[in-house]
């Protein structure tokens, strides 16, 4: 990219520079390129190139041999294995005959998606339409998986586990984080203390968080034992049941990430002009009314942006399940990153890259959809 720039550099003569030109002058003459070249080069070599290279891994069976790696092109076999083959239970979950709830849910989502597509036929350009078709396809696919596994009482795979951490986790974090920020934006004493304390978990090493949580939630000698005994669940082992393990994981992840929402939303709330709020108070509006009608419309552009950033990071979750349960019981707390990492450990690079690529596709589609249909819409509304 940067290389294209020095073509139309005014007054630059590639050959025949005078000998007395100093380094400084040379730097200045090329400053256009030199300023941006290091960053672009680094990203090209260590982010873009590997992303393309990963396609080769995902489409091959890779073996270590004496003289380096050996690639054998196998088309989409690695992906096929995950989606329909013998890794399906691990990745998608156990897909058997769909139950009543599952069928109803799948039908409802499909109908809603098609209705949305039909409505957007009139307003979208053809590029936008392609994007909408991709989002719709992913939505219907996820609805099918949910209907066939979760809602029909079958165990779910790493795909839905990751989506569980992203959707339910981010939702919970957003609600609690915004609530705390709202409390802290009120005129109460000790605000600065709470601010510092609430911020700390965000910066603690995720691995440390995992370990600390593992100790705190330990079901044989942890500090919560008296509480469990009091609640009458003294011999309950959360790490033995799939859903309780997932929820514990999500709560621990929330412990770390609520501060992020809190900090951003607090800044947004403090930006709301106090005059509006006080004027409404004088007119006798209740707190709930003030929040709904005055504060919320002003902070929603920041709220959706923060949620987007949080979602992007949430797709990458790996440290917590790795350290707390090692993905167990079975594979029920494995995120897709951890799934790929475990396959890599067993030296199957092709499949590992395929799972990583599926994660990339899922992340990009979900985040881009959220950005296009929610964030941009709110930003436009705020500007208008």
């Amino acid at each position, binding site marked *: *990219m940067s290389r*294209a720039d020095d*073509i139309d550099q005014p007054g630059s003569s590639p050959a025949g520079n005078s000998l007395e030109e100093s380094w*400084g002058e040379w730097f*200045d003459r090329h400053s256009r390129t030199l*300023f*941006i070249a*290091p*960053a672009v080069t*680094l*990203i090209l070599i260590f*982010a873009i190139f*590997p992303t*393309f*290279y*990963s396609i*080769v*891994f995902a489409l*091959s069976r890779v073996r270590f041999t004496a003289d*380096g*790696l050996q*690639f054998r092109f196998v088309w989409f076999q690695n992906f096929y294995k995950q989606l329909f083959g013998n890794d399906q239970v691990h990745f998608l979950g156990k897909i058997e005959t769909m139950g009543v709830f599952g069928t109803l849910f799948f039908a409802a989502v499909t109908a809603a998606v098609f209705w949305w597509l039909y409505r957007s036929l009139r307003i979208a350009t053809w590029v936008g339409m392609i994007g909408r078709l991709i989002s719709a396809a992913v939505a219907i696919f996820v609805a099918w998986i949910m209907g066939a596994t979760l809602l029909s009482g079958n165990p779910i795979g790493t795909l839905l586990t990751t989506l569980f951490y992203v959707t339910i986790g981010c939702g919970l974090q957003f609600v609690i984080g915004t609530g705390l920020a709202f409390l802290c934006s*009120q005129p109460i004493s000790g605000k600065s203390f*709470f601010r*510092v304390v*609430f911020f*700390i978990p965000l*910066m*603690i*090493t*995720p*691995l*440390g*968080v995992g*370990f*600390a*949580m593992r*100790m*705190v939630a330990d079901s044989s*000698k942890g*500090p919560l034992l008296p509480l469990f005994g009091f609640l009458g669940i003294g011999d309950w082992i959360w790490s033995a049941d799939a859903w309780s393990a997932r929820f514990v994981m999500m709560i621990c992840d929330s*412990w770390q990430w609520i501060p992020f929402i809190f*900090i951003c939303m607090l*800044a947004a709330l403090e930006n709301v002009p106090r005059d509006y709020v006080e004027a409404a*108070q*004088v007119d006798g509006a209740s*707190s709930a009314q003030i929040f709904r009608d005055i504060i919320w419309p002003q902070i929603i552009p920041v709220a959706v*942006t*923060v949620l987007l*950033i949080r979602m*992007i990071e949430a797709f*990458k979750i790996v*440290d917590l399940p*790795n*350290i707390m349960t090692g993905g167990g019981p079975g594979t029920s707390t494995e995120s897709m*990153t951890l799934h790929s990492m475990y396959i890599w450990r067993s030296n199957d690079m092709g499949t590992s890259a395929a799972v*990583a690529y599926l*994660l*990339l596709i899922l992340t*990009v589609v979900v985040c881009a959809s959220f950005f296009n249909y929610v964030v941009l819409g709110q930003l436009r509304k705020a500007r208008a």
Partner: protein
Amino acid sequence: MSEASFKFEKANRSLMERLFEPPAVGKMSPAANAVAHLLLVLWSLFVLFPIYWVIITSFKDAAAVNLGPFYVPFVDFQPNLDAWRVQFNIEPNCDLPAIARQLGLLLYNTFVFIISPIIALQPMDPQICKIYHAFTNSIVVSIISTVVCVTIGAMAAYALARIQYKPKFGNIMIFVGLTLLVIAATSYARVPWWLSTAVGLALFFFLARAFGKHFKHTLGNGDILFWIISQRILPPIVVIIPVYIMFQSVGLLDTHLALIIMYAVANLPIVVWLMHDFFASLPIELEESAQLDGATRFAIFWDIVLPLTRPGLAATTLLTLILNWNEYLFAVFLAFANVQTMPIMVAAKNAGEKGIFWWEMSAIIVIMIVPVILMAILLQRFIARGVLLGAVKG
């Protein structure tokens, strides 16, 4: 409502009204105030308890951990320094000052390592303790990669805020096509990687020179900025397998350099995003007048722009430093023996087959998280002043 009548009303209120209605506009009622404080204190406990538990566990011995939960040191159990002694590998009857001296030594030797290319200093009394290597590696890697990342990122962000770039769309397509060709040739036709890369680069320069002027469609600064920031969406697991192979083929696996590069690349999007916001908010007149006086672009950047954005620069650096210190996934793949960082050491201990020694683990965790907590409190002051949040709002 006039001031006088408002006060009059306030004096005549009943007890219920006093409790549940705000005494004045912009204040909270006593009941709401109490509920808010209760919630905030409860949440503080929820936040602080795991940290507290790790800290006190590091002062327990095997019995105090295994015989059930004990909560308060000196009341429930006698704290001792066994776990800490094991970490620093020193004689069993050492005291707190000895441990403090060990920590100081650790920091001094790290400093010597970092500065050794410039000034030849001897590391003092190189006593090898268990966490010595991991701690040194973590500090070296995170500091150097932070410096690299912030320098490169700030330069790119400044350029994107002030210089107009017009990369040709066609050239980018040529680049992508050639990249795919190089990859295919290297992996399936078994061409050596250096040969295919050199040929690919030469071809790109030739084709860009030859056809570049015929391409009409160009991209702008906004597109480049979006492209760089959007790299954050890329899950690290996608790039790490090819990167592992790349570093393996040039013999850089398990070195500081590999970790430094990958950490810097992973955090570039954040640095560019935040710094671009600071640079774009600066008034351009200062730079223009300096340019009229004949200052070069580097001089303007270094002497005028950077000092003006000092708070933003400091906050970004601190944030990058914390993220680098915490990084786990890249280190798992790229570092196994020589350059084990703190998180890798913790993860490896956690997976040990002898069962977990909670107290030793806690001591390591405390050593690992104390620097970040200190940095976080520093960073919090910047965030409270709204330094880092401009980018989110915009």
